[in-house]
């Protein structure tokens, strides 16, 4: 039985697509057959982050409308054979998504895949509600600042009331907090909310913390999910996150400021 994971946030620009790309790649690298779907119809981005923008022929809306089959639209990742990408349409808008259409696609994908990662668009409108409606698990991406935290809280409310699991009174969606763009130094200086602050407000299980990192921008620009950059802090953070999602017990990292050791001072570090 496939597990449907929605990566959502409410607020834009917090790292949903980066996280979707990294987590789906991480799951696939561990041998789980995974598909990642871009729900941001009209503002397609996932294909760029995954580095497959030149291979997009058909998209999610084509499949919903019956203009293409799933197999025609799915793009197989060149780095990992277990990973597939279903891109969004750039020429349509979110009204093209329907509960029935999305439900049918997910049902079909569930036959072949172990994990279905839904990259939600920002906002709480149609695209976002479609991405989360069928979810089993939700990874709520949040930045350590007040507006992002409030938007995440709003999204959690929607997950708890407007999803399929809520409507059919099944076991509720499992919700995880993913804190991105975290900068322990700025937290120490009181310029940023701390992990504890965010957790207190959202009362949510912490899946992991991704530090603010140059590696993220580099990864996006080169179309390589950051998790493949195993030397980088962000890449390691996402590896930990995937491990924790799969039930492994990994201690939290990147929460406190790293002490500059003599070795690092001499050789510069990363």
């Amino acid at each position, binding site marked *: 039985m496939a597990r449907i994971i929605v990566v959502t946030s409410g607020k834009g620009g917090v790292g949903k697509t980066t996280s979707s790309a990294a987590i789906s790649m991480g799951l696939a690298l561990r041998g789980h057959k995974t598909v990642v779907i871009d729900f941001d119809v009209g503002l397609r981005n996932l294909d760029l982050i995954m580095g497959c923008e030149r291979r997009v022929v058909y998209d999610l809306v084509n499949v919903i409308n019956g203009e293409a089959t799933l197999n025609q639209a799915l793009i197989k990742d060149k780095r990992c054979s277990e990973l597939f990408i279903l891109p969004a349409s750039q020429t349509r808008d979110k009204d093209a998504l329907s509960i029935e259409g999305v439900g049918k696609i997910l049902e079909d994908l569930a036959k072949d895949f172990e994990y279905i990662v839904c990259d939600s668009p920002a906002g709480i409108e149609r695209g976002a509600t479609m991405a989360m409606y069928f979810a089993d698990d939700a990874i709520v991406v949040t930045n350590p600042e007040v507006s992002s935290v*409030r*938007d995440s809280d709003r999204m959690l*409310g929607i997950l*708890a009331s407007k999803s399929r699991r809520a409507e059919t009174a099944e076991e*509720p969606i499992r919700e995880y907090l993913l804190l991105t763009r975290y900068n322990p130094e700025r937290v120490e200086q009181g310029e940023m909310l701390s992990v504890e602050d965010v957790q207190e407000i959202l*009362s949510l299980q912490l899946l992991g913390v991704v530090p603010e990192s140059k590696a993220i921008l580099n990864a996006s620009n080169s179309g390589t999910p950051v998790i493949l950059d195993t030397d980088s802090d962000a890449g390691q953070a996402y590896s930990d996150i995937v491990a924790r999602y799969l039930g492994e017990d990994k201690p939290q990292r990147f929460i406190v400021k790293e002490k500059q050791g003599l070795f690092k001072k001499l050789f510069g570090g990363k």
Partner: protein
Amino acid sequence: MPDASSPKTQIESPKTQLESPRTHLESPKAPLEFKSASLTIPALRFFSNDLAVIEATLRGKIAQATEFFRDSPVMMDLQLLNEQHQSVDVEALVGLLRALGMVPVGLRGGSDAQNRAALTLGIFRHSAPSGAPSEIKIPGAEPSPELLDKSALAAEKSQENRVVTQPVRSGQRVYASGDLTVTATVSAGAEIMAEGNIHVYGSLRGRALAGVQGDINSRIFCMDLQAELISIAGIYKLRDDIPGDVQHKPAHISLDNELIIIRGL
């Protein structure tokens, strides 16, 4: 004939007061909603069934305060007359009151025939028997019929207490027709409402409105007061008006004489 010195008619509690809930909280989808409202209207108690005497006495009263009685709704109370087996023609009585510019809206203490006659004239029968005049209030005495009436109404509405164990998130609204208990956090931007009391065994960061139907005796209890707004029976306090020394602490919020009182727990 009754004693000439005694008044032929007695008007009780001559104040018309509409108790409407102060905050208007519309239900999310319905185009209308039923709300209980209580209305104090004068009851006319008749001690005589002589229409001529009644008319003369009323004219005298009206002459003293013309504006007050114009279009004034009245409840016709026939209990005393019926106890003394003095029958009165309801139709004629209604005609008389209307001719004097009053608006008879209800009948109480009437016989079955009188009730039926009133109903054909579009006047409802007040279900409770008329009790002692309401201006005499004896502590510990039997609850007044009005009160009994209200509680009966409340029972009919089947007050439902609610317990919420999940966090109430930003943008969510929770409503309880009785008491509301939340065992988790109420986030900023969330709204919890109850016709009765509210208990929050977590941080209260959103809005909490107790006694939304106007119950001034309802209260709010919380373990950590950080609310954006607290309200009891429509009287509210915003975050900025909540003193700093009671914030971030367990609190007990009640209403005293139209003032929100916040105490530590």
